């Protein structure tokens, strides 16, 4: 699962401008213009490397933190089929994390450093995972709609310029489509099930809608410095475009099941071809990103528990004489 279109980057404000060698930079940009991919050993501008690390790292964190809200439902999944599918799904998300940490490591930051930055709050993960999965219906909403959002974002990113990230995303997207299929199936079972099931589902959709609207990040008009990132094909589409694409593909699927969406303004404008909606509460978004959401503390506490309780295992495996080898990814 993924992190959406927002890259948390408070450091950029204090960042001295780095003057790159103009010839190298021109060659680099020409390469991107020709549609060629950048490999780990190729020259790249400092800012390109820095932003990619941030983005891939945030994506990786989103996978392993995203495993937690659904993970708590593995032990409660109703019936064999759902139980096995959910374990497999959450397992896939951990596998995505593993692939992405490896992709980020090719840029020079170790998995350990990244995990430390996650725990200290220095680096972030997708905001949606700071909300609780309260009922079984939430599991189907996450599997269907959050994975759907992830696919839109990841498909766009998979066409980006950094080769190891693209390769990881190709594999990841194939699995995410499967999650979406499973999530949608579970969603349909509730939507077409007993009155209790329908009520559960409607309640879950109501609660998850605002975080889903936040998922792709702030509106383009308030989003800063995405121009260079788009030029370098780090960021592949605007937040608003991706949000629109999501609404276009999935709102009709929700409506056709008789489930409503808690936004009276939501409709497709047939003249512009774009979806219109109530602007999500961006203050809430930033409040949650900055640590004050309903589950931020819980999520990081779990990761700290993992770190502390598993330290003896990693120490036992540690071989001080072995050289660190950068993954090829």
């Amino acid at each position, binding site marked *: 699962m993924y992190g959406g279109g927002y890259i948390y980057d408070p450091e950029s404000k204090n960042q001295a401008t780095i003057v790159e060698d103009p010839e190298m930079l021109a060659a680099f940009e020409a390469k991107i213009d020709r549609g060629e991919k950048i490999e780990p050993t190729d020259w790249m501008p400092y800012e390109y490397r820095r932003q990619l690390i941030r983005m891939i790292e945030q994506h990786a964190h989103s996978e*392993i933190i995203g*495993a*937690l809200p659904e*993970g708590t439902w*593995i*032990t*409660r*999944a*109703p*019936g*064999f089929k*759902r*139980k*096995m599918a959910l*374990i*497999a799904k*959450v*397992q896939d998300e*951990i*596998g995505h*994390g*593993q692939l992405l*940490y490896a992709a980020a490591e090719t840029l020079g930051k170790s998995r350990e450093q990244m995990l430390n930055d996650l725990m200290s709050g220095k680096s972030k993960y997708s905001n949606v995972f700071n909300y609780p999965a309260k009922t*079984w219906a939430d599991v189907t909403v996450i599997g269907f709609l959050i994975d759907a959002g992830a696919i839109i974002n990841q498909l766009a990113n998979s066409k980006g310029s950094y080769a190891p990230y693209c390769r990881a995303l190709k594999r990841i997207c194939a699995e995410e489509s499967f999650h979406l299929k499973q999530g949608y199936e*579970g969603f349909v*079972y*509730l939507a077409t*099930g*007993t009155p*209790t*099931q329908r009520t559960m589902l409607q309640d879950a959709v109501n609660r998850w809608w605002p975080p889903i609207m936040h998922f792709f990040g702030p509106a383009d008009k308030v989003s800063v410095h995405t121009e260079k990132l788009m030029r370098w094909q780090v960021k592949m589409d605007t937040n608003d475009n991706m949000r629109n694409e999501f609404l276009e593909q999935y709102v009709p699927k929700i409506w056709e099941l008789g489930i409503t969406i808690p936004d009276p303004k939501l409709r497709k404008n047939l003249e512009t071809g774009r979806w219109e909606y109530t602007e999500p509460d961006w203050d809430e978004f930033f409040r949650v990103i900055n640590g004050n959401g309903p589950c931020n503390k819980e999520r990081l506490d*779990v990761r700290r*528990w*993992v770190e502390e*309780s*598993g*330290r*003896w*295992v*990693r*120490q*036992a*495996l540690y071989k001080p004489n072995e050289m660190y080898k950068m993954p090829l990814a």
Partner: protein
Amino acid sequence: MNTDAIKELLYKMGDDAFILGHRNSEWTGIAPTLEEDISFSSVAQDQIGHALAVYTILHETLGEPTPDFIGFTRNESDFRCSHLVELPNGEYDFSLIRHFLFDHAEMLRYRALTQSTYTPLAQLAGKIIGELKYHILHANTWVRQLGNATEEAKARLQSSLNELMPYALGMFEPGPNEQALIEDGVFIGEEALKAQWLQSIEAVIRQTQLKLPDITTLTPVYGGRYGYHTEYLQPLLYEMTEVFRIDESAEW
């Protein structure tokens, strides 16, 4: 053939796999490394899959209820799992040693069952054995690795081994129809299995700096095969069926 005896065998096998698969799945998302997280999830999925396969035989050939009904609606006292699989996960060393002790027995049990006179089980055993080889490979690798590593790792593994051994012996508690199973050639019997198992785990422990507890001094923890369980099974079942119970007539 003695159908009651076969049912008894299938229920205890299915329940062991189901409950331990459930326990192992609790590691998904929180294991010590991402790689091990993925491995433990695979083991859990396999085990739950084995339970489903065994319950399916009960349902399709022996007239028992559907697998979901068997897994998600029975009372605690209807379960025939051993106490070993019911215990909470504890820390990683505890879960690893349990996985090691359990899957060695599981591998040998299914290997013996490939020769069973009860055809559905013999066929299933042939399929499952391939997966169990990987479970053993996984468990052995970790036990060898950690059992020869730091002082802390060795101490942890040893203390989990000491704690779990009486429970592991409880896996071999003979059920009421044990003799019939042996006479009908359905299964070699728990005593014979236990002897094979001891050899098999000893061979691995010998390659580590751990010590296998002297089993002659231990009292096996029995009761599970007769429906008597630890205090941990009921809460586990309660959690597991939480959603299912909201509406048992519903399809989820």
